[in-house]
């Protein structure tokens, strides 16, 4: 496409750097500095998309972040396709492929436009009134049809090759918005030496000064003042300038989050650059200088392509050197459009200005448009054209509201101005209270809650000299300075307007479709319908009509909807209220929000000291909390079942070796350590001798088991506490909570030693044979070192805490050495164990072995509703101690009922069926649904040692049901199982002493 609408001169584009991109497959010529929107307009493209509901043809309405219409899919290469980009914010970049959305088969010819013909039915809220007959049609027909029609662009379906990063920063003053107010604020703050960050969503800093071609500031053209300001700021080391950076969220305690677009504007970005950078800034003070959004005017068919905001016309002409039309009609209720009309006229375009205000209300702005056709006291009754506007139908209105003869003003572009809405989004997000200004017909910042101030247009100031002065003072004040500065601006900014709702019309207002929310196709009559149906709260209107809920979040439309509501209810706007603004100000990619958090960085992976050895020896790993633990060690041709069977056999008959390093470890020391444990655990600790271990269940104050582990007394004032793998942090936190807040008088330290100690479990009848040659100074004989004892000494010259404990039922040791030495010790043990067939085993084998003995796993055999007595461990609970954590709760009425779920064993009657963990248990399979469930299977394994599957279960009144037959669910039905005590192999526990065990239950 040739640049049919490019003006011969002017604009900030770089005419020396032409580039091409495509729109719906057709080439578009552009210059560096263009946006996609300005380039499309330069190429004479008006039709840019289809609306959400009625599929009406739509063009470019705005020049910035508030664009509701021109939403495009942008393709930057494989995996880099994303929908719903505002053409006004996408910088024209060589090689981009952009495409319009929400139409079929094409933008020009869209069958969805049939909805436009059905619009008398498809009014606000019609969904709620229909699609109910017949009932089954909703899921099968109506909803799929509605969904297919809804949505805008197409979601990406390929993984994103781009990177996103986070940056955390602190500053004294964060200035949001680099228009005249923000620049002045940043300069004033920077002069004090304060650390300043100045961010702006546009590619170039400058805001409205980027299209200010007439004003002079302190005697210099605005562009020159802008260049100087930017240069000044760029030269300062205490200032960070962030163009292309949108402050989208103002969170608690001056936490402001911004997203910086780093590469989207680069045709060939360096591969090490992230696509976006999320800035999380904790600012001492914030200066909000976010400007204002112009409002369109509401009249019938005010949405045709070519109809845009008046100031946007000015921006395209002045900043981009583009004529959005050759014949432009401005319609305004205020002064600012006069400047736009004058600039368009100066660019050689045919200009007409229609002012809805009576002639008498027009002030000095009249002088700006000498020579322009000027209609005052007129209304607009409609527009002509379809895919592009061809004319506006206007008519005079008398003082008493009589509409005169219509005239059609031919045009190929219209610029609407219905006043300005200060951008109070960030202020409102900061929880500041808004106050209403009748003269602006808009909300402005009122009282602050956080440390921020608003300056310039976002605070309701529109005169450039005042904006600059306000910005300067605001920036200085934010930096704790009282510096003030006046600015001389010529000519004066045309300001002021008359608030209007829907433009006066002689047509039936119930039939006129005057669009307010362009993207969601909400018209003024939709708002009135909602009110008629009783939706009087602004939030109700919003939700019923969907006004303001599109991707632009109503930046151009909210005040109009509020105004109509105010008029209809005959209540002033402040009494109607406004909706709360919430982050984000403009849509933010998920990528920017998550940053680098993918894969391993999504959640850190914890690896035990012997992880690499296990990986080298073919271990399959499982996730346990943050840990990755060796699950089993398959040999060639083995599946998990075979590997586990082999590993179990080795432990029962020879010796196995297991990395238990993930066990939580806490060193509890101090003169009151024993007293502390005595209060924390339900069993007794005062009399435990140094050198001895004891198993402890830990309860929360509610009486339920929340962790367990073996505790060793190293010395009178030193205990080595172990916890479950996942439980270490919460156990330590639990201890600290009581130590610091309930019993600060106790002299105790609790220190995490989980990472310090590697734990090698050596288990099996031959464990001592393997270990003995490596231990330097500990007598391993059964007499000197019995079960549940702890010795300190050396192994291979390395200090160790050697535990004689068993979680397998076999005689065994847990060798604690400093993590750095773990691999050497492990490899030595493996070498020494070779003659005994030493076998590394994983967590699955550990589970099988412990289940054969009936040892519980907290979190698997318990679920936070289980007491010690439920586990059959009531005997561990001290009756003598007056108090311990959880004791009082155990005395509550429901904690002692006989029908509580109790831990039992289950053996399937067929001797073959492996129960599923989680399977439910009933007494009678013939009862009707819903059935009475007695409990569930908590652990279930195929046991080679027992020659059959074994299971543990929590069963209501289970201990009284020993030898009963119950029925357990299977994927296809039930299987019968006998209730037995929960210990299947060596129930007397003799094997821990290395004596050949007794037989199994089975």
């Amino acid at each position, binding site marked *: 496409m040739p640049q049919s609408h490019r003006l011969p001169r002017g604009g900030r584009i770089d005419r020396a750097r032409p580039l091409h991109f495509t729109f719906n497959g057709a080439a578009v010529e552009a210059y560096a500095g263009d946006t996609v929107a300005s380039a499309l307009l330069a190429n004479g493209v008006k039709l840019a998309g289809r609306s959400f509901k009625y599929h009406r043809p739509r063009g470019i309405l705005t020049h910035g972040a508030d664009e509701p219409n021109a939403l495009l899919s942008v393709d930057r290469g494989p995996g880099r396709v994303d929908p719903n980009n505002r053409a006004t914010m996408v910088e024209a970049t060589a090689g981009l492929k952009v495409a319009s959305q929400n139409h079929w088969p094409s933008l020009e010819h869209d069958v969805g436009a049939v909805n436009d013909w059905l619009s008398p039915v498809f009014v606000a809220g019609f969904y709620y009134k229909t699609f109910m007959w017949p009932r089954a049609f909703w899921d099968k027909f109506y909803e799929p049809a509605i969904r297919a029609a809804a949505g805008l662009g197409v979601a990406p379906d390929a993984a994103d090759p781009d990177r996103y990063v986070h940056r955390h920063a602190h500053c004294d003053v964060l200035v949001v918005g680099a228009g005249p107010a923000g620049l002045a604020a940043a300069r004033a703050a920077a002069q004090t030496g304060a650390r300043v960050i100045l961010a702006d969503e546009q590619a170039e800093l400058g805001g409205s000064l980027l299209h200010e071609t007439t004003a002079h500031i302190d005697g210099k053209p605005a562009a020159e003042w802008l260049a100087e300001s930017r240069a000044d700021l760029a030269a300062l080391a205490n200032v960070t300038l962030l163009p292309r950076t949108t402050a989208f969220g103002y*969170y*608690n*305690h*001056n*936490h402001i989050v911004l997203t910086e677009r780093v590469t989207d504007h680069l045709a060939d970005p360096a591969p090490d650059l992230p696509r976006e950078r999320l800035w999380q800034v*904790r600012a001492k003070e914030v200066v909000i200088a976010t400007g204002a959004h112009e409002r369109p005017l509401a009249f019938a068919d005010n949405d045709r392509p070519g109809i845009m905001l008046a100031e946007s016309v000015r921006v395209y002409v002045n900043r981009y050197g583009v004529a959005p039309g050759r014949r432009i009609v401005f319609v305004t209720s205020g002064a600012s459009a006069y400047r736009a009309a004058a600039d368009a006229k100066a660019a050689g375009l045919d200009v007409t200005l229609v002012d809805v205000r009576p002639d008498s209300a027009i002030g000095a702005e009249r002088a700006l448009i000498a020579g322009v056709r000027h209609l005052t006291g007129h209304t607009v009754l409609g527009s002509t054209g379809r895919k592009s506007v061809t004319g506006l139908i206007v008519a005079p209105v008398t003082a008493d509201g009589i509409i005169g003869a219509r005239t059609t003003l031919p045009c190929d572009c219209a610029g609407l101005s219905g006043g300005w809405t200060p951008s109070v989004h960030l202020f409102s997000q900061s*929880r500041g209270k808004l106050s209403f200004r009748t003269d602006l017909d808009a909300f402005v910042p009122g009282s602050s*809650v956080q440390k921020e101030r608003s300056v310039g247009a976002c605070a309701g100031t529109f005169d450039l000299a005042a904006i600059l002065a306000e910005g300067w003072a605001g920036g200085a004040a934010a930096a704790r300075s009282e510096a003030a500065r006046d600015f001389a601006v010529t000519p004066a900014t045309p300001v002021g307007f008359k608030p209007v709702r829907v433009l006066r019309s002689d047509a039936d207002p119930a039939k006129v479709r005057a669009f307010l929310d362009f993207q969601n196709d909400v018209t003024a009559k939709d708002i009135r319908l909602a009110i008629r149906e009783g939706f009087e709260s602004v939030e109700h209107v919003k939700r019923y009509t969907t006004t303001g809920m599109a991707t632009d979040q109503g930046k151009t439309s909210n005040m109009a909807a509020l105004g109509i509501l105010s008029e209809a209810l005959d209540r002033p706007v402040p009494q109607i209220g406004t909706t709360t603004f919430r982050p984000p100000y403009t849509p933010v990619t998920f990528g920017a929000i998550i940053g680098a958090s993918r894969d391993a960085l999504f959640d850190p992976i914890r690896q035990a000291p012997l992880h690499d050895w296990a990986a080298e020896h073919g271990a399959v790993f499982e996730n346990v909390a943050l840990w990755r633990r060796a699950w089993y060690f398959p040999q060639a041709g083995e599946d998990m079942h075979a590997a586990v069977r082999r590993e179990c056999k080795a432990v029962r008959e020879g010796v196995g070796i297991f990395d238990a390093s993930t066990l939580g470890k806490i060193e509890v020391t101090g003169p009151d350590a024993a007293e502390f444990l005595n209060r924390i655990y339900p069993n007794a600790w005062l009399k435990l001798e140094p050198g001895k271990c004891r198993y402890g269940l830990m309860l929360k*104050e*509610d009486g339920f088991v929340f962790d367990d582990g073996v505790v060793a007394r190293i010395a009178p004032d030193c205990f080595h506490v172990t916890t479950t793998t996942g439980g270490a942090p919460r156990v330590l*936190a639990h201890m*600290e*909570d009581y130590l*610091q*807040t*309930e019993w*600060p008088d106790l002299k105790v330290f609790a220190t995490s030693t989980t990472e310090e100690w590697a734990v090698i479990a050596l288990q099996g009848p031959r464990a001592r044979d393997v270990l003995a040659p490596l231990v330097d100074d500990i007598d391993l004989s059964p007499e000197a070192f019995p079960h549940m004892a702890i010795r300190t000494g050396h192994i291979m010259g390395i200090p160790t805490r050697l535990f004689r404990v068993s979680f397998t039922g076999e005689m065994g040791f847990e060798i604690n050495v400093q993590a750095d030495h773990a691999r050497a010790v492990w490899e030595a043990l493996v070498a020494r164990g070779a003659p005994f067939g030493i076998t590394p085993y994983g967590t699955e084998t550990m589970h099988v072995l412990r289940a054969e003995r009936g040892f519980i796993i907290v979190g698997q055999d318990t679920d936070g509703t289980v007491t010690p007595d439920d586990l059959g461990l009531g005997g561990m609970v001290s009756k003598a101690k*007056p*108090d311990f954590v959880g*004791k*009082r*709760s155990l*005395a*509550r*009425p429901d904690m002692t009922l006989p029908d509580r779920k109790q831990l039992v064993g289950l053996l399937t009657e067929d001797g073959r069926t492996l129960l599923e963990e989680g399977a439910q248990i009933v007494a009678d399979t013939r009862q009707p649904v819903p059935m009475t469930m007695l409990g569930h299977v908590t652990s279930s394994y195929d046991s080679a040692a027992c020659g059959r599957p074994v299971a543990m279960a929590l069963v209501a009144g289970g201990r009284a049901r020993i030898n009963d037959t119950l029925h357990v669910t299977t994927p296809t039905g039930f299987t019968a199982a006998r209730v037995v005590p929960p210990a299947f192999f060596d129930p007397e526990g003799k094997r821990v002493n290395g004596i050949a065990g007794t037989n199994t239950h089975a």
Partner: protein
Amino acid sequence: MLLVTCPYCGARPEIEFHCGGEAHIARPETPSALSDADWAAYLFERSNPKGVHAERWRHLHGCGRWFNALRNTVSDTFLASYRMGEPRPDVSAPSDTSKAGAR
């Protein structure tokens, strides 16, 4: 994200902290002396105020110390933070946010 002031370390971002719920609920001296209802009240009942809330925080990823803080639950503004064992400071909340709002 809140900015939480640890009385030992100063102001730090919230992710360094663990919030431990309402403060000044002391564990009874002799739990066995309490009725079931009183024990349940200790364990579970919370004032959950709309206004100033005294709450426990622990500087988990910092000094590890527990401390108490006063925060307005409407604005989320901290009014004070103080060490365990110190009495609750007398801070009066702005009147518009301290009233007991209810539907």
